[in-house]
């Protein structure tokens, strides 16, 4: 292990837009995908991550470094995650959930999907369609019927004009 040799092992990760990042192996192996590569001995050179762009990867690495610096204290880790995600917008969060899924990082995956849900909680149906890129495949009659069935759930929804 790195600690025994005295010099921490560093990995080089490559995003799909060809940006290179250095990260300590001990932090990077939070990703099961990367850990498997390291264990299989494929981590000697540059590790290409074809599904993650540079901007998202930079963010994920910030998270990896931040969370692995915290000792085993679930409360502190949680507050770090909350703070880390607090200023991210929906698009960034969506990119991160995809990256966390691809990198197989369950702690980040859980935190980001919970954060996205928190953002969605008071949003309108129209907002969700726009942000998730979903086409409304209901006929106007069908849609009205579904809405009528759960009328009370439309109370307290934010108005639609924000981003």
């Amino acid at each position: 292990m790195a600690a025994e040799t005295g010099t921490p092992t560093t990995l080089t990760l490559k995003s799909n837009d060809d940006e290179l990042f250095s990260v300590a192996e001990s932090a990077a192996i939070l990703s099961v995908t990367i850990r498997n590569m390291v264990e299989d001995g494929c981590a000697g050179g540059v590790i290409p991550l074809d599904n993650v762009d540079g901007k998202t990867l930079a963010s994920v690495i910030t998270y990896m470094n931040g969370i692995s610096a915290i000792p085993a204290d679930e409360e502190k880790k949680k507050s770090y995650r909350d703070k880390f995600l607090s200023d991210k917008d929906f698009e960034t969060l969506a990119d991160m959930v995809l990256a966390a899924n691809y990198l197989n990082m369950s702690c980040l995956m859980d935190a980001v999907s919970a954060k996205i849900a928190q953002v969605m909680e008071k949003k309108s149906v129209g907002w969700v369609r726009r942000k998730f890129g979903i086409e409304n495949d209901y006929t106007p009659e069908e849609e009205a019927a579904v809405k009528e069935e759960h009328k009370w759930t439309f109370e307290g929804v934010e108005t639609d004009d924000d981003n």
Partner: protein
Amino acid sequence: MADNKSHLPPEIVEIILSNLSVKCLYRFKSVSKSWNTIIRDPVFIQNHIQKSKHSNSHNLFLTRAMSSTSSIRFSVVEFDDEKFQTLPVVIEAPFGCGLVLCFCDGILLLTNRSYQRLVLWNPSTRTAEKLWHRNGCSKASFGLCRDPNTDDFKVVVADWYHYSVYSCKKKSWIMMKKEYEIEYTGLGFNPRSTSPKGVCVDGVSYWVWSRPTTVTKIVYYDPRDDKFKFLRLPENVDRCKIIYLVNVRGSLGMYCNFCKVQIWTKENGVSSKELIRVEYKMPFWFSLKLCSVRNKIVFHENKDRLIIYNPCEK
């Protein structure tokens, strides 16, 4: 705007949706047919229920709201930062039934003064189901339980000399027995106070059965084999004392608070019949009510005073 679109694959959408509240999920059934399909899926619903149970959000309470009109309403109270806060949500009681008999996994059994008209109510989905009992049951004890094998909710009405069980799956009263199979239970007509309310833990309904002249016992109804059984009390409990039952983070808890508070909890699974004492004694001289919120135990000491105890910190 087109660039803003994120095309998340359905399996990730499902993970995100599993974090949403029921209210929000019902609203988002209108997003598209495929979202409606995800949200209605029984497996998704089961996962959502399990997730809610294990999340640390057991801090919402229903309380009867003061209302100027004749309708009966409930408001939602949140317990956070060691105090209660009323949320801006008011829910009307279904079918005019505002007396809470008991509750289990977010489902409430309600009635009105007749004790004949019973309503099963899920406030999270705002759905309710009426069931009429043949008799008025004002002196009966009520319990709600859930059979984990069939996922069937059962309503138990235990009266003095007979009891009846309603199955939600079958939508009918499945049992009307004149006699109890174990030694005379007689949960109904409890002279000490009003009849004991059933406490639902892990799908089983428990009652404290006590008589002034005899000993206190804990009776439970097991929905798996539809039988009443007794639970043995811990060794060193003063058997004449009034005991209370409570659901402590998914385990059965028992407490008595005469001069000192003692709490016992039972390990899960009906097979373990021993109550295991896990707590301590505290010198209180008040009558306390108790419930558990997140990992803490909250004592409600009449009116406004609360005492919060964190078992991890002592």
